[in-house]
């Protein structure tokens, strides 16, 4: 008894939309980066589900590359957060208006 692929797609859609909502409504910049991790994990679930469904290993290899990009994103993003905190002593995104017109 196998699970239909559409169940995995629904689960992935729920997690991805939760991530999008988190990026839009949270004001803490660390919480925003955590929501980005949610979205990356939603794509990972999709990749692995289709890899099992189509019996193709390419999906699992792409999850590998997604992990690499997520690690790089976390390293650079947290370094930017530390630099911002050093110059403004806050991590609230509403305080950062340097690039606004």
């Amino acid at each position, binding site marked *: 008894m196998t699970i239909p692929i559409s169940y995995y797609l629904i689960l992935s859609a729920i997690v991805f939309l939760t991530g999008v909502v988190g990026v839009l409504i949270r004001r803490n910049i660390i919480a925003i980066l955590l929501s980005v991790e*949610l979205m990356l994990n939603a794509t990972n679930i999709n990749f692995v589900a289709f890899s099992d469904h189509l019996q193709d290993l390419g999906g699992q290899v792409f999850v590998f590359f997604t992990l690499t990009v997520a690690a790089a994103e*976390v*390293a650079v993003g947290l370094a930017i957060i530390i630099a911002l905190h050093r110059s403004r002593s806050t991590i609230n995104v509403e305080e950062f208006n340097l690039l606004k017109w």
Partner: protein
Amino acid sequence: MSQLFFGYFAGMIAITSILVVALRNPVYSALSLLVMFFHVAGLFVTLHAEFLAAVQIIVYAGAILVLYLFVVMILNVTQDDRYHSQWRIAGVVCIPLFIESMLLLSGGAGAVKTGSPSLQSEPHDAITTDNTLAIGKTLFSTYLFPFEVASLVLLVAMIGAIVLAKRDIGDTNA
């Protein structure tokens, strides 16, 4: 039996991912994200991706989340008092997307099932019993060039993180 496992893992993933966004304290958000990573790893095991499940736990739960908690502790973040004022825009963006995806999935479920046999009949790198061996062979033969590019991405990210996070030279001299 497999449906029972899928229901448990999917329910926990959905609940904890909503908790990540809903909880005000960043430490609690990070910890519920940890629970979510473990359940995603369990879902990978049910999908015959044992190596990726191990990598998910080691890299995400072991490295990335520790880095997050480290920065939360360094910056001594207090909790949010309220959400961003953009929540109306978030609702306008996400509710139509959610309805649209549900409609597509309910309408297109039959199309996915009919389309799958033609895709399955093509020759692929088949998922064998030894998952790690198969991934290693695919990664170092078919995807060798993207693998090297990924290592370059990691190198650039490492240098960038060091350059961004270190203090200015004038500060250290003073």
